[in-house]
C-alpha cells in the first residue's frame, strides 16, 4: 500500500503540504471532545438513514477500523442500529476490529462521499483492506446505496462550516484523483 500523503504528494506537490498541514492541525485535537461530536453524528445518521442497516444484514454488530494514514488517529465504527458507535482513538490504543480499511484521508472521504469507486481504489492500491471481507463488502454496498452521501449528511449536521469543509475537500479530492 502506498502511503496516502506521499502518493498524492507525488501527484501534486502543494497537496502534500495541505495534507501534512491537516495532520499537524489534527495532532492536538482532544479525542474525548472529537468523540462527543462523533457520538452525536452517529445518532443523527442512524435516525436519518435506517435503510443503511438493512444492507449490512448480519454484519451490523461487527467493528470496522477506518485508518486514514495521514491523520494522527484511527476511527472505530460499530454500525449496530441499537447501539451505534463511532470513536476516534490513537493508533497504539486500537482495540480488536473485525475488518479494516486503510487509505489517505482524501481517499476515504471520497469513498464515503460516494464519489470514488472502491474497486478502482483497490486496483490502484490507494486503499488496503484486511479482515472480514464479507463485512467490508456489505458496508461498502450499504454506504454506496445512500441517496446523496454520508459525508454530505455529516456536513449538513455540522452546519455551514461543515458544508464549506466538504466543498473544499471535494475540490481537492477531484483534483487529486483526476491525475
Amino acid at each position, binding site marked *: 500500500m*502506498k502511503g496516502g500523503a506521499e502518493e498524492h504528494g507525488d501527484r501534486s506537490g502543494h497537496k502534500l503540504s495541505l495534507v501534512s498541514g491537516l495532520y499537524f492541525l489534527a495532532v492536538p485535537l482532544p479525542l474525548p471532545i472529537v468523540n462527543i461530536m462523533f457520538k452525536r453524528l452517529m445518532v443523527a445518521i442512524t435516525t436519518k438513514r435506517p435503510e443503511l442497516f438493512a444492507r449490512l444484514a448480519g454484519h451490523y454488530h461487527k467493528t470496522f477500523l477506518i485508518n486514514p494514514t495521514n491523520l494522527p488517529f484511527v476511527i472505530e465504527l460499530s454500525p449496530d442500529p441499537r447501539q451505534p458507535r463511532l470513536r476516534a482513538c490513537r493508533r497504539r490504543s486500537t482495540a480488536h476490529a473485525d475488518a479494516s480499511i486503510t487509505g489517505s484521508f482524501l481517499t476515504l472521504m471520497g469513498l464515503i462521499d460516494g464519489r470514488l469507486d472502491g474497486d478502482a481504489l483497490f486496483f490502484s492500491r490507494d486503499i488496503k483492506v484486511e479482515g472480514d471481507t464479507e463485512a*467490508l463488502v456489505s458496508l461498502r*454496498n450499504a454506504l454506496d446505496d445512500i441517496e446523496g452521501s454520508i459525508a454530505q449528511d455529516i456536513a449538513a449536521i455540522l452546519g455551514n462550516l461543515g458544508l464549506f469543509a466538504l466543498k473544499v475537500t471535494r475540490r481537492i479530492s477531484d483534483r487529486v484523483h483526476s491525475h
Partner: protein
Amino acid sequence: MIVSIAIKPELVCPAGTPASLRMAVDFGADAVYCGFQDATNARNFPGLNFTFAELKSSVLYARKKSVKVLLALNTFPPAGKFALWKNAVDHAVMLGVDALIIADIGVAHYARVRYPDIRLHLSVQASASSPEAIKYYCEEFDVKRVVLPRILTIPEIKALKREIPCEVECFIFGNHGLMAEGRCGLTNYATGLSTNMDGVCSPAQHVAYEEGRNRETTTKLNGFAIDCFSCSENPGYPTICKGRYYAAHKPEGYYAFEEPISLNLAELLPDLVKAGVDAFKIEGRQRSKAYVQKVVSSWRRAIDQAMAGESIDIPDLLSLTEGHKQTQGAYESKRWR
C-alpha cells in the same frame, strides 16, 4: 473513426443498488440490468442487489425517463430449489420489468408458459455462440435477444447476426472473465459454493488479503493462495481464473487461465455498430455508483458520437479497470489467450 448508421444500439448498464440504477438512468442508459438479493442472479454478493420493494420503485423511476429495466435471472436452479427462481420470475413480471435475462432452460420454460408476453433475453451465462444454439432458444422459448459470449470476432458476430432470428447484445466494457460463462466450476472446487447455482464467484466470506513483510499482498480464497502482488503491482479481483500459479514448465509463476484485465472496445465501437449489434452492455453490477456515473456517461457520449458520424472521443477509463490493463479480447482477434 467515422461511422454513420441509422439504427441506434441500446446502451445497457449495470446497477447493483437502487442508487446506482438512478445514476445509470440519469446519465444516459437506455436500459439498466439488475438482480434480486438471492441466488437467482450471478452477482449474489453481500449488501448488493434489490428487494422486491426496491425493484418496484426503481422500475417506476426508470419508466418515467423511458429507460427499460432488465432483470438478471441468469443462474441455474439446483434440483429441489426451483421455487426460488419461479418466485423471482413471478415477482419480476408483477413489478413490471421490461425483460428477463435467463440462462436456464427450465426458468425459460416456466417464464414462457406462465407469462407468454414477457420478453426474454438469453444471458451470456447460457454460453450460446453458434447459430444452432441461439436458434434453439429462439424457437423453443421465443427469446428476443442473445447476449454473446466474449469469444467471437467482429466478422463472426456480423455473420452470426445474419443467421439468427433475434437481436444481439455485446459486452463493450468491464470485467473480462474466463471465457466459459455458465460452465466455470473453479469457485465451486475451492469453496463448495457455485458461481452458476449460488450466484457467487469468489464469495466474499472466503476471500482474505494478507500483507507480507515486504508489503506484498497475498490474495486467498478459502485458504488457497491465488496471487501475490508486490507493492508495485496492481491487483485484480480475487478470482481463481485471474490467479498466478506455479507449474513445472513455469517455475516463475504465470496466469494459467486469464489475467487481471478489463475489456474496453471504445476503438471498435464503429465496427460493432456496422456489424449490426443491437445493444452494448457494460459489466459491473458489483461496482459503485461513482463507477456507473463515469462509465455510463462516457459510453453514452461515445455511442451518440458514433451514431452522428462524429469521431469518438471517450475519456480514459483505465483508472477504473481491473489490474489497470485493458484489452479488446477476442473481438479484435482470435489470438487472445
